């Protein structure tokens, strides 16, 4: 109980950010409902559950975030990462994970309300959501590492946010897609962040299967990141004293 009040007390300092998040969460959810109301006539319970969890994951995971290192590259200040006695990949990962922890506590009251409303088990929620967060960090790290090639990150942001929101199922749930497309899209890493997590949380997919899919993509993207980030960063040139 004491911990809960401490969290509330900390949250109160960020009440504006929390209210803004809550506002966007419900707005996005309602707009999706308004559109789906025209096209979807059945499976409404499933749809509502899917959309609420998808909006949550979109808020918690890093898919829609611009990582700090990308902004630093754009500003020419990435040398900060270079002078520390740690690898770039590790620093980027730790920074983004810290950001997730911050937003997690900020949005905790909303999360608790949703878990209660949807009658979800906290037990089955933990592992898929945690892996989803880790995978989303790996995905954004890979894409935004190309900031050092283009210098600006607005195009990468547009591409990643557009494509990932679409292919992960957070805009249009994958179960509404034509079957042949579903089969292809569900194999991609974006689906492993949102769609696979929702299936695991709602019991549509065994947690073991979901974990294996997510772990597979985490391993692949971590290896890709290790090479891309370290190679790209080693070629960075900083001018100045």
């Amino acid at each position, binding site marked *: 109980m004491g911990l809960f009040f401490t969290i509330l007390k900390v949250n109160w300092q960020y009440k504006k950010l929390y209210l803004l998040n809550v506002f966007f969460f419900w707005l996005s959810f309602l707009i999706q409902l308004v559109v789906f109301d025209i*096209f979807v006539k059945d499976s409404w319970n499933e749809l509502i559950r899917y959309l609420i969890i998808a909006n949550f994951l979109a808020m918690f995971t890093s898919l829609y975030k611009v990582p700090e290192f990308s902004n630093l590259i754009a500003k020419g200040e990435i040398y900060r990462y270079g002078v520390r006695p740690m690898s770039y990949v590790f620093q980027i990962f730790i920074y983004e994970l810290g950001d997730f922890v911050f937003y997690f506590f900020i949005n905790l009251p909303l999360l608790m309300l949703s878990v209660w409303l949807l009658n979800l088990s906290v037990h089955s929620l933990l592992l898929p959501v945690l892996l989803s967060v880790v995978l989303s960090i790996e995905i954004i790290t890979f894409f935004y590492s190309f900031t050092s090639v283009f210098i600006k990150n607005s195009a990468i942001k547009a591409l990643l946010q557009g494509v990932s929101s679409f292919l992960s199922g957070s805009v249009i749930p994958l179960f509404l897609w034509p079957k042949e497309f579903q089969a292809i899209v569900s194999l991609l890493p974006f689906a492993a962040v949102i769609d696979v997590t929702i299936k695991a949380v709602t019991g549509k997919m065994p947690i073991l299967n979901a974990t294996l899919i997510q772990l597979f993509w985490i391993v692949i993207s971590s290896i890709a990141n290790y090479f891309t980030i370290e190679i790209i960063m080693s070629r960075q040139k900083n001018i100045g004293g």
Partner: protein
Amino acid sequence: MNDFKMYLLYVKLSIKSQISYPLDFLVQIFIWFVYTLLPFFGLAILFSKVSKVGNWTFYHSAYLYGVIGLGYDFARMFARGFDNFHEVVYKGELDRFMIRPIGLVWQIMGNDFFLRRLSGILNYVVVLFFAIVHVHFHFSLLIVAVATFFLFLATLFLFFGLFVFYGITCFFSIKKNIFSDVIIGNTAQLGFYPLEYIAKAVRYMLFYVIPIGFVSYLPAKKILFGQDFLSLTFTISFSLFLSIFLLWISLKLFEKFTKFYVSPSN
């Protein structure tokens, strides 16, 4: 006329600076093309669930998507300065604009010209042609083309007016506020769905608060399904009048509200 010449000079310089990094520019053009195509795929997926919504088929909605998208992207290209107006206010750059002997609106418009929107425009033109080829119109192709052009203009003026309204809100919020994302973005996103089948509260908002229903949806419906030329002419004229009136109001208000600007510089 002098203001307009200066505006053209601003735009020329802005374009020159954007294409001075050709690789970055081409990549951005490609990425924005993909980005603007995604809602169209979404529309196709939703229409794969139902073949029709009332009279509306996928091609009818694609037509609306094309026209509204064209108006929206052209507005964002020309009114990018208003879309980014928070930065001008926040950094105090408006001080410099105010001491120049050129109209404020021309300077804001010329301050930022969003050239990469060309890829979205190309995408919407292709979708529009694709829709026109597949839809059976009661009017001749010439009437459809002329009416579509005026409908595009009306939509462009509406969104332009909304961006100017966003500029007004920046005098008070100083920093970026949610008007642009929530009101303008969502209006563009919801505008291409068959509005008469949308939830009542949202429908009222899209007709009476941000009148995209009157400006774009009803005229598009007349072009797609109408048979009466007089009724089509009246609807298109009303749509144009309404959008020009809203743009005029927003520009007048913008002029009035500049007095609320407080410079952050000393």
